[in-house]
């Protein structure tokens, strides 16, 4: 046992956090994990309600995997504590492991075993059988059944993810942790995967899902935006977008080609009231520095400003996407050391 890494409950950080919610499926308070000099997770606190589909959104290195490994009892925290469906992963891991489902970010299937053999194996690990759990896995199994005899190595990316999900579900867990389940699969498979998660959610399953794709945030009940080991914001996706604090304008160049875009980008960054200018697909997103003014008026003004410099472009006010919100939080919440 590593001594002195965990403080007694309530000491130090305890007072700063909301009162303990006994009914929460997951509670984390001040979870911190270091690897040598790298602070992988920096005092992360949050709660997930039973039945919630909770997303952790952030790039590689944000700490998503570390967080999941702490909550699934694979790591011990250096500081802070957590409870997952009533168990402390640091002290009560065997009871917790029987009840949680975990789909690691890395490929977790045996490539030389067939689809059904993988599933049967994971069922046996949890002392059950595929047949006994068919009610739970049926919606997913229906899609996998045509490939039952195929080796896992020969499955498409999307099918592999579905099989991994099926394996994580085969013991009817009380909570599901999915670490970047859609990384590396094509857009259609991603959508189908989220459709499966939506079905599980209807069945009452509590799910924590991490993803680097901002566009997947809208499929979650609530999301935590993560960056460099910290949570920038936790809210419903619509609330995250609505909270964007500045006027946001989409600027589309009249011409085509990279040179035109580069020119427009450079010009807009010269604008005295530009807080940020970023390419967003074929348009550019211009965030105004001022919080007050009416976006429609700003759009007109910016169009005129560009025209005065001989640049033809259309400007229109838009509402923020999760990605805009993420970038705003990233740049406005720099190291609070």
């Amino acid at each position: 046992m590593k001594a002195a890494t965990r403080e007694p409950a309530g000491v130090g950080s305890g007072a700063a956090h909301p009162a303990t919610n006994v009914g929460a499926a997951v509670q984390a308070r001040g979870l911190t994990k270091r690897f040598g000099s790298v602070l992988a997770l920096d005092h992360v606190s949050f709660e997930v309600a039973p039945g919630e589909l909770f997303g952790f959104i952030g790039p590689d290195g944000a700490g998503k995997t570390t967080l999941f490994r702490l909550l699934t009892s694979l790591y011990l925290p250096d500081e802070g504590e957590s409870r997952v469906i009533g168990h402390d992963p640091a002290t009560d891991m065997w009871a917790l492991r029987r009840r949680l489902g975990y789909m690691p970010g890395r490929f977790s299937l045996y490539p030389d075993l067939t689809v059904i053999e993988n599933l049967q194996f994971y069922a046996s690990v949890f002392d059950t059988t595929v047949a006994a759990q068919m009610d739970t896995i049926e919606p997913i199994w229906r899609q996998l059944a045509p490939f039952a005899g195929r080796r896992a190595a020969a499955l498409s990316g999307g099918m592999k993810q579905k099989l991994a999900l099926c394996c994580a579900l085969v013991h009817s867990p009380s909570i599901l942790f999915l670490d970047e389940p859609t990384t590396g699969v094509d857009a259609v498979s991603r959508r189908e995967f989220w459709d499966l998660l939506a079905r599980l959610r209807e069945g009452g399953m509590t799910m924590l899902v991490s993803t680097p794709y901002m566009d997947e945030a809208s499929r979650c009940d609530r999301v935590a935006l993560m960056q460099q080991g910290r949570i920038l914001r936790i809210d419903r996706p619509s609330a995250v977008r609505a909270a964007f604090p500045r006027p946001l304008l989409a600027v589309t160049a009249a011409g085509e080609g990279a040179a035109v875009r580069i020119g427009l980008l450079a010009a807009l960054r010269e604008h005295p009231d530009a807080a940020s200018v970023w390419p967003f697909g074929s348009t550019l997103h211009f965030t105004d520095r001022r919080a007050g003014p009416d976006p429609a008026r700003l759009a007109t003004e910016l169009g005129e400003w560009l025209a005065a410099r001989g640049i033809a472009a259309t400007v229109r006010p838009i509402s923020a996407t999760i990605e805009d919100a993420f970038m705003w939080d990233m740049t406005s919440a720099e190291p609070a050391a």
Partner: protein
Amino acid sequence: MRGRRAFFGFLGKEVRHILRDWQTLLVLIGMPVAQVVLFGYAVRSDIRGINLAIVAPQPDAATASLASRFMDATDTYRVVASVADAASLEPQFRDGRVRQALMLPSGLAGALGRGEPVTIAVVTDGADPNTGSLMEASTLAIVRAWDAGRTGRRAGPRIDVETRMRFNPTLESVNLFVPGLIAYVLTIVSALMTAITIVREKEIGTMEMLLASPLRPYQIVLGKVAPYVALGFLDVVLVLVAARLIFGVPVRGSNALMLAESLLYILTALGMGIVISTSTSTQRVAMMAALAGTMLPTLLLSGFIFPVSAMPWPLQAASNVVPARWFVVITRGVMLKGAGLADLWRETLILAGFTAALFVVGIRRLAVRLA
């Protein structure tokens, strides 16, 4: 029963891994037989066609009788020169045309008749010490046999022949190799393959899923090693049968004891594999560690090829912690001497101790969390 279902689930999975990787399986089954043949024929150090010179300054009936023994042993000897003076042999010795000279004294027949002590010198090309000592022993054996069968031999001083090869009188080195070979093959199959198989789970990413499951470390270890016990056992039988059929190497002692001791050593080697695999994170490192940590010591320090008694003391001391060294003593005892458990209980106990220690260490090191 939760333990049983998990165990058999694990076992089934492992067996499939082994059967599906048929190339490796083929190597594991073919290798022991190939090794027997390899060591039996190619690498064996039996001496064939020794170029022998007989130096007899004064040929008489005795020298002729002794020389004829060597002339008749055409398998082993080619008598390339019969000369009166050793000096003329010097150049031939140097370029290898003569590998050994039998130097007979003057008046051999007379001296023997009178019962006087005689000295026969055997000069051997020692450039290759292994071969040299074998040639020497072979020649001494013939001289001794000739002396013993001599008509009119009296009691009294014998010709100075001190080596007695009690258990391997024909000096068939294949007999010595087979017991060592069993240790070697079992080390490869058991230690190397187990080392790789657990690390493989870490490498493909499935270990994370297993760790997050209710499986206990001992369940993982038992599920992993069980199929290799069977495979190792199959290999022992293959080596014994191949050695018997191809070279006529017998098991003088009890077959059951031989198999039981082999089973014990399989477990020892599996234990080594588990310890290695729990300490490494890639198959490549595990393989290197298994080669350096188990195969090389088995090859070099177990007495399989180089006699332990001929090693400098630090190596002799080191050989004590090489389990194969004790297993080689056991297998040689059972196969060549017909020894029983009463003779070998000490070595058996040592191996059992190694095995228990390795399993305890291995299971404890198989972390219940990620590092």
